[in-house]
């Protein structure tokens, strides 16, 4: 067993055992960390692996969430059916964005702007979609929460924690396999120098589309989870650009393109920002927007002192 897989096994065991020692609040924070770790991992496939900067990943969270929630709300279909619709719609939207950008040579900052634009269009569209609640929001019935109702994905906080943990581990395995495959090498080549990649026989259009498809499909699952965990959806919130930014902060701070960066980044950000908010509250200071200021400061510090993120130096220290 290598050092890496041994460390991973220990971490996994700790996370599986965690709920037995943690209270409800700690469990909800841990679930949130796993949610951001997973979603960051999904975003990382596009940006970290293939070098395509999406600043509109809230689009896929939102569409995924509304797809599954809509089926449940109107037809009583559980998320296991909704999941497929969510993935289908998100991949379709991702491929539309990708086709428009990659076919017509839109890249870099302009590609990022296009992803923001699509998320914004969709937000405005959903504001006018009364069938899904419009700006007033869509609310799922919160049933009693003591027993695990897996077919409808209703249950106690513990169930959501384990679901998110399973997703995180699955994403980690899938991403580590991808990175070591032909797709992973091709994506990294495109990220480093697209012209050189083409000269080596890589159909860069096709491989970039694949990265978008995988990333949007993974993010769709985040959306489905979000809908059934929070039970309320508002276009103004779920599609908002601040949500897109929240998704990408974890991987940026942890280390873009690395496998553990998104996980570590999500943990550090969520723990520290919650800690600061709580600490200030304990002192009797309620400062609105302090979380955003904190995000800004952390981002600035990481860019200045650890431009590759905090995971790479830690990995070197631990010899992983």
């Amino acid at each position, binding site marked *: 067993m290598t050092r890496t897989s041994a460390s991973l096994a220990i971490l996994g065991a700790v996370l599986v055992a965690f709920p037995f020692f943690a209270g409800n609040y700690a469990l909800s924070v841990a679930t949130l960390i796993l949610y951001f770790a997973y979603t960051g991992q999904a975003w990382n496939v596009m940006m970290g692996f293939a070098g395509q900067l999406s600043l509109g990943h809230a689009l896929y969270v939102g569409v995924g969430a509304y797809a599954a929630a809509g089926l449940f709300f109107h037809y009583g279909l559980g998320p296991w059916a909704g999941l497929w619709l969510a993935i289908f719609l998100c991949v379709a939207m991702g491929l539309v964005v990708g086709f428009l950008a990659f076919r017509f040579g839109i890249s870099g900052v302009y590609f990022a702007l296009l992803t923001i634009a699509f998320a914004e269009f969709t937000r405005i569209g959903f504001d006018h979609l009364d069938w899904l609640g419009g700006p007033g929001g869509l609310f799922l019935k919160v049933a009693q929460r003591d027993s695990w109702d897996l077919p409808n994905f209703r249950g106690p906080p513990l169930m959501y924690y384990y679901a998110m943990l399973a997703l995180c581990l699955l994403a980690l395995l899938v991403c580590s396999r991808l990175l*070591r*495959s*032909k797709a992973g*090498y*091709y994506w*990294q*080549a495109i*990220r*480093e*120098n697209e*012209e*050189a*990649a*083409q*000269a*080596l*026989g*890589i*159909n*860069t259009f096709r491989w970039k589309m694949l990265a978008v498809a995988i990333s949007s499909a993974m993010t769709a699952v985040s959306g489905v989870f979000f809908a059934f965990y929070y039970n309320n959806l508002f276009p103004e919130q779920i599609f908002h650009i601040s949500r897109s930014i929240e998704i990408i902060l974890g991987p940026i701070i942890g280390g873009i*393109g690395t496998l553990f960066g998104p996980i570590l980044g999500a943990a550090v950000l969520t723990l520290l920002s919650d800690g600061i908010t709580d600490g200030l509250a304990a002192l009797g200071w309620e400062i609105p927007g302090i979380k955003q200021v904190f995000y800004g400061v952390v981002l600035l510090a990481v860019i200045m002192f650890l431009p590759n993120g905090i995971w790479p130096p830690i990995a070197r220290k631990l010899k992983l």
Partner: protein
Amino acid sequence: MSLLAVRGISKSFRGLRAVSDASFEIPEGTINALIGPNGAGKTTIFNIIAGVFPPDSGSIFFGGRPVHGLRPHEVCAAGIGRTFQIVKPFAGLTVLENVMVGGFLRESTAEGARAAAVRILEPLQLAAKRDLPASALTLPDRKRLEVARALATRPRLLLLDEVMAGLRPTECDQMVEVFRGLNREGLTILLIEHVMRAVMALAQHVGVLHHGEVIARGTPQEIVRNPGVLESYLGEDTEL
């Protein structure tokens, strides 16, 4: 039968004629050089062959098949590998990984691509540096890496864009030996080169380009005695 046939290609950029009705043929199994002063259109011809942009007019046949209008990845898949004059390493990847990327064109598994890459690194003297990031390489090594990556796609024709520039004479001679070896194994080579030492040592056929036109063709010995070439490019006092 020629492997590559370039027939009357022209290309203009905003009214400036970069290549004008250029034609040449490259027989299979030969080493050919394209020389000429800066701005003569050499790299433009390379880019047209490699599919970076289509010619305004004219046609290109590779192994009897038309390749003009194909995109770069299709040209590469057809069997034409190329290097870039301004090197373009995948800086964040290791030397071995850089070459593996090329290897995936003919190998679907990472093991296969890695094995192919390892075989290529040895003769190019990059084997000891295989685990270094490409960003840590010196310019001569980056030039070798360009060649290694292109070779990993297993081309029938290799286009080399000034790979000798910046190399010391001994390094240049080593490269010459590498290309001779590859040529013996059947690889056809077309090189753009300013280093006449390498051109004289390698090329069996030389074409001279001036203002986008092919002004002379022949063996290296014929070319260096051609009055037109001496006037436009090499200069009267050239000693070889």
